[in-house]
């Protein structure tokens, strides 16, 4: 890793977290309250639980952010995605989805190469070539029919392949669960994306009214994620999501 950048990034992040995360406390039992009938000692608990034993030093901030994201999702993001699915014809939505995936393919190729996953890189390159031509600028996805399936790769995964652990768990505003490693990876991907400016798409998108292509990308992404905040059915949703996010990232790194 580029140490200077990382250090600066971590420093910035830590400052932000200390500012926002301060005042995060444990639950506050009332003064002089009776201890509960069942405690850690009475359930003879020693050692750690695999589910809670996760590095999460900024839990207060993370939980607030999780809750903020849930509100945003419930009142704005999810209803938008639902309306998008309900009122736009599937063909159009598929076109948008394919186009967005196709334009991102360059990131997949780059990261696969950095991971020395040459087969994946070749497949993603093949997809880009086929879909950009036969698929009419990526609106269609004939490559999948030809057996070249889509595989998302990002720099967080690349770092993982290089041996970096996830580091502390983080919940990013609007973007959701992440880790220090993946947040850093996201930053690198973003810089690469801006610098590469594939087919002039990035600069074009940024010059549009309300950045609508980026908003469309966000809605398309949300419409394809089958998850609703606080619908997992457990009051411990944050703890389960935290663990499952980290597990799934491990899956993606191994693939």
């Amino acid at each position: 890793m580029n140490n200077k950048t990382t250090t600066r990034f971590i420093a910035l992040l830590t400052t932000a977290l200390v500012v926002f995360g301060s005042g995060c406390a444990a639950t506050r039992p009332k003064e002089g309250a009776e201890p509960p009938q069942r405690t850690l000692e009475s359930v003879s608990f020693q050692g750690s639980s695999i589910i809670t034993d996760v590095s999460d030093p900024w839990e207060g901030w993370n939980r607030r952010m999780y809750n903020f994201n849930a509100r945003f999702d419930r009142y704005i993001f999810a209803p938008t995605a639902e309306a998008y699915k309900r009122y736009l014809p599937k063909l159009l939505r598929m076109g948008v989805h394919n186009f967005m995936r196709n334009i991102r393919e360059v990131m997949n190729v780059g990261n696969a190469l950095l991971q020395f996953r040459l087969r994946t890189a070749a497949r993603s390159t093949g997809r880009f070539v086929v879909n950009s031509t036969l698929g009419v600028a990526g609106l269609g996805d004939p490559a999948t029919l030809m057996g070249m399936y889509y595989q998302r790769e990002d720099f967080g995964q690349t770092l993982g392949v290089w041996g970096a652990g996830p580091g502390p768990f983080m919940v990013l505003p609007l973007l959701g669960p992440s880790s220090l490693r993946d947040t850093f990876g996201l930053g690198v991907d973003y810089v690469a994306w801006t610098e590469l400016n594939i087919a002039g798409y990035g600069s074009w998108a940024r010059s549009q009214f309300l950045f609508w292509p980026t908003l469309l990308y966000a809605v398309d992404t949300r419409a394809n994620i089958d998850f609703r905040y606080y619908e997992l059915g457990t009051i411990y949703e944050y703890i389960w999501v935290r663990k499952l996010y980290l597990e799934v990232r491990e899956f993606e790194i191994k693939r």
Partner: protein
Amino acid sequence: MERRKIRDAFAAGKRPTLRPAYGILEKGPNCGGDCAKLGRVSALLMSEKKGFLVKNLAVLFLASLLFWSAAQADDYGFPMLDGFAATVISTPENLRPDLRIKGRPFRLKSLTVFPDRPVKPYVWYHDKMRYLVFPQKKPAPLIFVIAGTGSSYHGPHMTTLYQAFYLAGFHVVGLPSPTSFQFMMTASTTQAPGVLDDDSRDLYRAMTMAWEQQLSQDLEVTDFYVTGYSLGGAQTGYLAMLDEQEKVFNFKKALMINPPVSLYNSAKRLDGFWRDNVRSAEEATAFWNRVMGALGEEYANTRGAVNLGPEFLYDVYKRRRPDDKGLATLIGLVFAITAQNMITVADVTTQSGYIVPVGTTASTAANVDPYFIVAGRTSFENYFRDLLVPFYQRTDPSITSEKLKYRASLKSFEDYLRTTDKVGLSHNRDDVIMADGEIEWLEGVFGDRAKIWPRGGHCGNMAYRENVEHMLAFFGASLPEGR
């Protein structure tokens, strides 16, 4: 018998064998090893040695008897999975009817059941009871669908029911289980679920309000029906009885799908699947890592998008052949997660001071790891004995644990179930949540209103073609042509 065999083997720590003559993917009548025998016999018939023929006629006769009995034991086409595997995998895609629905014809509704109950800021998201409606455009019968333990209005089994009934022409209204987080917060009187009559009354109230305040405004309904699976199945029976007195809906028919007979017994069994197999934090860690390791490897070998549905699970099962102990532990874990939530929420809402000290100020930002761990190590039995019974005794000191167990069981309204002709039952011989003799008890009570499938585990065969057809036929309906 099959169930007993599996369980005994399970108890002895052995891996029970699936009937060896059948591949697990093979469906329908299958002569297995008998095919070869029949072939040999017919070859003998052709042979010149006539003396042999007579002797071998007997063999042929025996062989065909074998063949028929095998075919008869097996004219049910659900895959040859044992109860544990069927519960985990459920029905493979190619054995389901085509239940796809065009577009998104559903509406998510919310209902305020207790206007005076303040919404707790840290559970702002459960401010109202949410339920899902699939309305028809023309007058149609309406069916209420009740979710299983811990489930909200969504989930794979609920989806099967929504789709099947919607395609068959019903308005479908899906309600969360009284044991679900959202129902406990928004529609439960006691907020400590587990007693069948009280939970069902809560459901009935919510259904009535939903109908009177919301649904009656935009739906034209010809008749009312109700169904539910698992715990929702048991509540379905009680709702049918309650409706005979309250007469809000005058349900024409009610179908109980895989209900427990005794909620307490079934919960104890499910608890045991997890707690008897995983006795320490180290074992829990090992189990978790084993499951995650296997899933991770499978994921790495899958191409493209991975759908964690029955196809994927079936594939994994065929490759890895997990033993029943592993599968049972997994089923137990899912139940333990449900119980963990239920116990915590009931403890906080009833201020029982069982896991969370009385008067604790909750906050969104708080670390709750200790409560998570303690609740995870609290069994349903503990919940029942230490929280539910004392909670009920607060209002009625004469209540005992035995009385509550009885009220949490179908036996508490056996007379009604025995005599009514409205309520039907669909169950599985190898359902893993049933204790010894409970299926037989149900057969006795329901008589010819009971349909007991030879296998399918706990709700594993709900989406199987024959089951869907049977379920719809019970309500006098069927899927459209070609599905």
